[in-house]
């Protein structure tokens, strides 16, 4: 149609390489911090004897989500250990948890900001849409360029992919706090911080927990992709099975991911639901 071609690719490549040199030390520092976080989590998970960790997890799940979920966790983790996937399982769990910590640390405040200001909401919304719909592989490449091969770009890619629903649901939840509750908080002379932590956050808790739940599920779906850029764990095991055309091996690793997903889903969902039950009949 035109001789002129809009140089989007040049702009993006230019921006990425500029950022790489300009913010290099910052990225390195960030990579070290995430590495340390994951390393710490992994050490904690692998420090105790495996049966102890399994029982501890099952007990925690039972406490938060009821004995059925606890029993499922016990059986599921036993299977994982039995098929020799305990090591990659803990690696993946550490990655998922580290990414989730970052997602919550950034996503919740961002959601609050978006709830408080229509301007922020207007700016953030298209960015979130963009992040969620852009195929993950596309930002995997710059992530690798910025942070090198390994677990850190996996965490970053997961973060970008999984944070949108949390921000959205936090904002929605706080915006849906009934107006008279907000007025009551103000009328009694609450500061805006008191209003947030004593009224808005507790009332919005079911919605916030739904956001956490959604982001964990998206987070888990990135596990295999993270395996492609050198993050060790279940993702790498799945890929190994595929590469060797060993369907059984791939299925075992996939099953371990599913077990992790089900336990995390039930636990986070039940925390949100239980609070909701307390709150309103």
């Amino acid at each position, binding site marked *: 149609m035109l001789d002129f071609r809009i140089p989007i690719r040049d702009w993006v490549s230019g921006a990425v390489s500029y950022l790489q040199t300009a913010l290099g030390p910052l990225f390195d520092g960030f990579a070290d911090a995430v590495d340390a976080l994951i390393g710490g989590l992994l050490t904690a998970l692998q420090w105790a004897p495996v049966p102890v960790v399994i029982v501890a997890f099952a007990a925690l799940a039972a406490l938060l989500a009821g004995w059925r979920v606890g029993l499922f966790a016990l059986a599921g983790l036993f299977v994982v250990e039995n098929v020799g996937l305990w090591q990659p399982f803990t690696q993946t769990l550490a990655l998922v948890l580290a990414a989730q910590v970052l997602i919550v640390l950034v996503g919740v405040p961002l959601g609050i900001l978006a709830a408080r200001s229509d301007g922020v909401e207007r700016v953030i919304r298209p960015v979130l849409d963009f992040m969620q719909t852009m195929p993950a592989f596309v930002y995997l490449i710059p992530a690798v360029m910025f942070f090198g091969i390994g677990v850190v770009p996996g965490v970053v890619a997961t973060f970008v992919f999984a944070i949108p629903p949390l921000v959205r649901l936090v904002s929605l939840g706080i915006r849906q706090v009934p107006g*008279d509750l907000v007025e*009551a908080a103000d*009328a009694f002379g609450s*500061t805006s911080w*008191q209003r947030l932590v004593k009224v808005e956050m507790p009332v919005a808790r079911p919605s916030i927990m739904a956001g956490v739940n959604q982001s964990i599920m998206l987070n888990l779906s990135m596990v295999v992709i993270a395996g492609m850029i050198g993050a060790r764990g279940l993702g790498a095991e799945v890929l190994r099975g595929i590469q060797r055309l060993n369907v059984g091996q791939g299925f075992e690793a996939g099953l371990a991911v599913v077990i992790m997903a089900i336990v995390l889903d039930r636990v986070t969902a039940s925390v949100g639901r239980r609070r909701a039950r307390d709150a*309103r009949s």
Partner: protein
Amino acid sequence: MDSSHPPDVPSPREGTDEPAAKIAVRGLYKVFGPDPGRAIAALEEGATKAEVQARFGNAVGVADVDIDIAAGETFVLMGLSGSGKSTLLRLLNRLHEPTRGSVVVDGTDITRLSRRELLQFRRERFSGMVFQQFAILPHRTVLDNVAYGLEVQGVPLARRRERAARAIELVGLGGWEGSYPHELSGGMQQRVGLARALAVDADVLLMDEAFSALDPLIRREMQDELIDLQARMRKTIVFVTHDLDEALRLGDRIAIMKDARVVQVGTPEEVITAPADDYVAAFVEGVDRSGVLTAGAIMQPVREVARLRDGPQTALNRMRRSGLSGILVVDGERRVLGYLTSERIVAALREGEVTPDRIHRELMEPAATVATDTPLADVITIASEGSAPIAVVDATGRLRGVVVKGAILAALARTQRNGAGEGAGGAPDAPSHAGASHAALGAHRA
């Protein structure tokens, strides 16, 4: 002698005449939307809310309001929905920012306070607010809900729980401290809302349609309790309602709002007997007057009285002059001694000599007396027991006027006639209205 004096009902209307303004509102405007200046200019020139909306697109919440609310009074803001009453209430503690004008509370213009000062001011002077839908926190127990206002002020846990427990006791919710809101009925939830405000124990209590969401019986009960609490606490209450009966029951004074403006401020009696315009008149027609009107409002001046020392002929002459068959007997300080009928004097004269002393001892009957602030409903009860006119006396016992049956019927009939939508001009004392006035009496007693 005056055995028929009504029980001494503490009147909520006492002490409203001292003008010590707790809250003084001056030239207050609230206009929503961009560029409110031209909307205010138009409103100042008399444009209505609808005209401003049509011309500039701005919604007018409150226009040109001047009111003084006295310390310790229950001041009711009344109007239909959209009249601006809730907006005006929220301008008093700046939940809404005033567009123009001032709100002076205890000498401080709150429109000039910084955010931080405003926060402090709300904590110290306002007992929060009581809301139509209760607005209590679903995730907190009754006790922690009630303690909320103290909690944000930084009152230590033990102390605020103690004060909250006392407020809960006060509203009759003792024993429910550990319950969650969803375990309570609507009426109980609103008691929590009320206790939350009382726990703060500040002077000014703002109530926004506080009882409107409750069913009629509970609502009545809450109104009674508020009147009761107010008699003990003497807070300055600003109460918003769309219900005229509620306004008349609770209010020492009522401000009636229409289309963002205040069209009349007055006592319930003033609003009913002297509506400022057709709108208020239409509003108050059909209301049960017997609970609002007082003997003082419908009494007539006493044309003739008999003195203690008067002989029978003098008494009869005075009756003849006033065209009545009976007369009240007063002492030198116009205190009512009794009631004398021509019938008994004439009968006594036939039997023999009648001295002033004999009139006093034998012929005089006890007179029915009521105080000037006795509600019409009670006057009706007394009137139904005898045919003599009822003497109206002031606090010192001096005769101020009389109430005759015709006046009671006239006062009630005015309402009934308006309510029935009949044309004006009919004689108010026509006998056909007797049935209607009984109906009004019945309604009041129900």
